[in-house]
């Protein structure tokens, strides 16, 4: 096997690199010698080791992306079925209340965990972290491969629950006991067990991937890449991974205890229960304990999705506005601060859950404190646009769409985080509108922007701009007209998770709106297939992108070959001399200076020291 390694051939990056520029002293280009030797990589030769059980983080990233997208499409189809029922009750004959609740549950769980989390951390994380940090690969490629295949099995188990007796669990994505494991909820037998098993597998697989992301960022950056020179994408994914490593344990423990309650008849979450006139064998457990465990995972989970999105959007805006990200330090500290605070706010999901009401004061305060760093990020995004030189291409449109939807959803978050305002609005459609806007649509805008931005790197070809614009406007306008009016259903008081609204006089006034929302949902869902068509078309006939097509500064565009090969950097690791945002530097010839450009080559510029 050892012949598969070519590490002996790699020339180690030279210490004291002194490529003297035309002017300026070579001393200013000095970068410390390498601390570690070059990474030992396993190069696959057969089809299986190259594309299936592959240890290259870039291939693993694409694998994660494709599988997450696949499950995401299933989630999308489920949402269509739900909207069909809500907009036009009774139109789909097969739709019973059981089915409806199963679809609600699976849609929620798939979208939050198996789509967004897997896509941002598994997909973008794997692809971008080594490239942006200047590493050859993730530090533990074998573990990284296992991580993907664990995710694969987890998805398999999750989807298998559609085919077991009783169907998938219909307990809502929060899986609150006692209801989730009792008769009266669809899928309370096999469904909930497979769900718990799938989550445990997902957490195990994710832990393997997460260790890779963290150690790569901490210990495998290239020479000159200090923490404060890392692109915000890396900061976002890194912090999100830290959150995941500390939050997923609570989910794991909750799932395990619930499985035991179901299988062995323990009573961790089960108090004395009277069902159909008979007292069940359970007793003495606490249902609220599960809610605490769930939301101790669940709230950081929101930021596990949001922080990578924050990071990626910062980079996209900066590249396409041809301007450095405004207040980089503030942005980094905001990401870290939001991450840290997110562990102290979980019970704002539980204001009306029956927990000790005095917790309300504490959690309302911590929750609203988070609004401050988040608002700072928003200010910095729009201040980056200010006096920029904005390319209004598809990527930038997604960014603008993100700002609108994120600010909208963030502000409704202030409604729900403020304990008193939450009382009338919790468990209504206002909540649904809020979290779809802020952690459904807004991250989706980022994903789409990122796909249009990095596709030229991954595939070497530009996606079609015209189709991209259609895709954007249909998605943005459609999604906005789904969720903006939906807040008002919440004001009326329409509760969530109602299979049918029935006859309440004030609720029937919303029939027209529900029909409108459903139609918009069908259109938005269908519009996503434009992207798939665009990708297929581009792979066949797309315009080649070449090196660094967006004229970006960050490392991922500076690989010797496009798309980058295994090992990323050819013979020599890059050496970094500056942060990732030197756009439009006064005195420079072009409007960007790449991270690898030594100071002596751009000696007459006024660059901030980073």
């Amino acid at each position: 096997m050892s012949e598969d390694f070519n590490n002996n051939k790699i020339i180690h990056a030279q210490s004291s690199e002194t490529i003297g520029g035309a002017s300026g002293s070579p001393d200013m280009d000095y970068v410390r010698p390498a601390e570690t030797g070059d990474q030992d990589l396993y190069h696959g030769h057969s089809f299986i080791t190259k594309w299936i059980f592959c240890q290259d983080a870039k291939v693993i990233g694409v694998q994660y992306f494709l599988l997450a997208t696949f499950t995401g499409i299933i989630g999308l189809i489920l949402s269509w079925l739900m909207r069909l029922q809500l907009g036009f009750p009774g139109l789909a004959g097969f739709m019973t209340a059981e089915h409806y609740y199963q679809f609600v549950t699976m849609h929620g769980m798939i979208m939050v965990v198996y789509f967004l989390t897997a896509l941002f951390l598994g997909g973008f994380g794997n692809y971008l972290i080594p490239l942006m940090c200047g590493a050859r690969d993730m530090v533990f490629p074998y573990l990284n491969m296992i991580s993907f295949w664990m995710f694969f099995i987890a998805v398999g188990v999750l989807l298998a629950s559609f085919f077991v007796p009783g169907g998938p669990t219909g307990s809502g994505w929060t899986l609150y006991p006692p209801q989730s494991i009792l008769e009266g909820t669809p899928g309370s037998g096999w469904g909930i067990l497979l769900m718990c098993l799938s989550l445990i597998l997902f957490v195990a697989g994710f832990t393997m991937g997460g260790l890779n992301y963290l150690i790569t960022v901490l210990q495998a950056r290239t020479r000159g890449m200090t923490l404060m020179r890392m692109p915000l994408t890396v900061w976002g994914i890194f912090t999100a991974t830290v959150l995941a490593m500390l939050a997923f344990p609570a989910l794991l423990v909750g799932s395990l205890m619930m499985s035991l309650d179901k299988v062995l008849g323990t009573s961790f979450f089960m108090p004395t229960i009277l069902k159909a006139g008979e007292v069940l064998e359970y007793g003495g457990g606490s249902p609220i304990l599960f809610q605490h465990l769930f939301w101790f995972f669940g709230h950081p989970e929101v930021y596990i999705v949001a922080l990578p999105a924050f990071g990626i959007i910062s980079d996209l805006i900066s590249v396409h506005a041809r301007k450095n990200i405004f207040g980089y330090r503030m942005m980094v500290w905001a990401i870290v601060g939001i991450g840290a605070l997110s562990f102290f706010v979980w019970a704002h999901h539980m204001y009306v859950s029956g927990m000790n009401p005095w917790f309300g004061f504490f959690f309302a305060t911590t929750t609203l404190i988070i609004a401050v760093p988040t608002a700072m990020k928003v200010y910095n995004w729009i201040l980056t646009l200010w006096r920029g030189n904005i390319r209004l291409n598809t990527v930038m449109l997604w960014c603008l769409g993100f700002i609108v939807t994120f600010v909208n959803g963030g502000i409704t978050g202030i409604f729900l985080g403020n304990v008193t305002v939450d009382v009338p609005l919790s468990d209504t459609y206002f909540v649904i509108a809020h979290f779809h806007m802020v952690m459904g649509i807004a991250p989706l805008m980022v994903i789409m922007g990122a796909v249009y931005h990095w596709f030229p790197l991954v595939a070497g070809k530009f996606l079609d701009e015209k189709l991209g614009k259609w895709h954007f406007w249909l998605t943005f306008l459609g999604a906005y007209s789904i969720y903006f009016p939906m807040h008002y259903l919440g004001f009326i008081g329409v509760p969530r998770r109602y299979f049918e609204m029935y006859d309440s006089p004030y609720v029937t006034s919303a029939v027209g709106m529900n029909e409108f929302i459903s139609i918009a949902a069908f259109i938005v869902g269908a519009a996503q297939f434009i992207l798939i068509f665009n990708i297929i078309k581009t792979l066949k006939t797309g315009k080649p992108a070449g090196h660094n097509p967006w004229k970006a500064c960050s490392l991922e565009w500076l690989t010797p070959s496009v798309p980058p090969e295994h090992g990323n950097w050819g013979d020599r690791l890059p050496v970094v001399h500056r942060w990732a945002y030197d756009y439009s530097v006064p005195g420079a010839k072009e409007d960007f200076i790449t991270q690898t450009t030594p100071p002596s080559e751009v000696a007459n510029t006024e660059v901030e020291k980073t």
Partner: protein
Amino acid sequence: MSDPKIEGYQFKPGFSGMAHDTASDQTMFKGVHWGKAMMWIFLLSDTFIFSCFLISYMKGRGSTPVEWPNPSEVFGLHVFGVDVPLLLIAIMTFVLITSSGTMALAVKYGYEKNKKMCGWLILATAIGGLTFVGMQAFEWSKLIHEGVRPWENPFGAPQFGSFFFMITGFHGTHVSIGVIFLFIYAYKTFAGHYDEKKRGWFTSMKGDYVEIEILGLYWHFVDLVWVFIFAFFYLW
């Protein structure tokens, strides 16, 4: 995996110097092997798992309407006609802590490239772990014999059985996994895989004595967790 060498790096004094070192290029933890850093972070994550278990246990124990059984009676042993509380558990704890000591020695001899001593000490650690698991199995069977089940408990609150079996079981699984790896590593040490830097079976990464230290970290952690479980279940 590669050997860290941090020539040319001068650590800076003071708090701001520490911040500077932390944020400097290439590595955050200077000279720390990738695998070791990974194990530390994994253990941090694992700490959260055990914390969730133990906090749930505290909550469960605090809110159950039925009386919690008295640990010194439930866990007591009847030896030579006398009731000795916590006897078995004291031996178990002693064995596990001793095995931590042999593990630490194994790491030391590993770095000294003393293959034989290192291998024997790893084996001793593995046998200590195995003894611990065996005694735990004995304790489980004793409790099961007395009628304690995860779902019921003749001595009081049924949650006692649930939490006890779940948490000690989860910890026992950790120990068992550790024991399996200890045997593998003992074999690899004796066979000289670390001396020849032989590539691993699965990961195809070069062998190195640092792996023993990484496993040692895990082993000490499992020990430490046991101390907490011991305190929470047997002394509370």
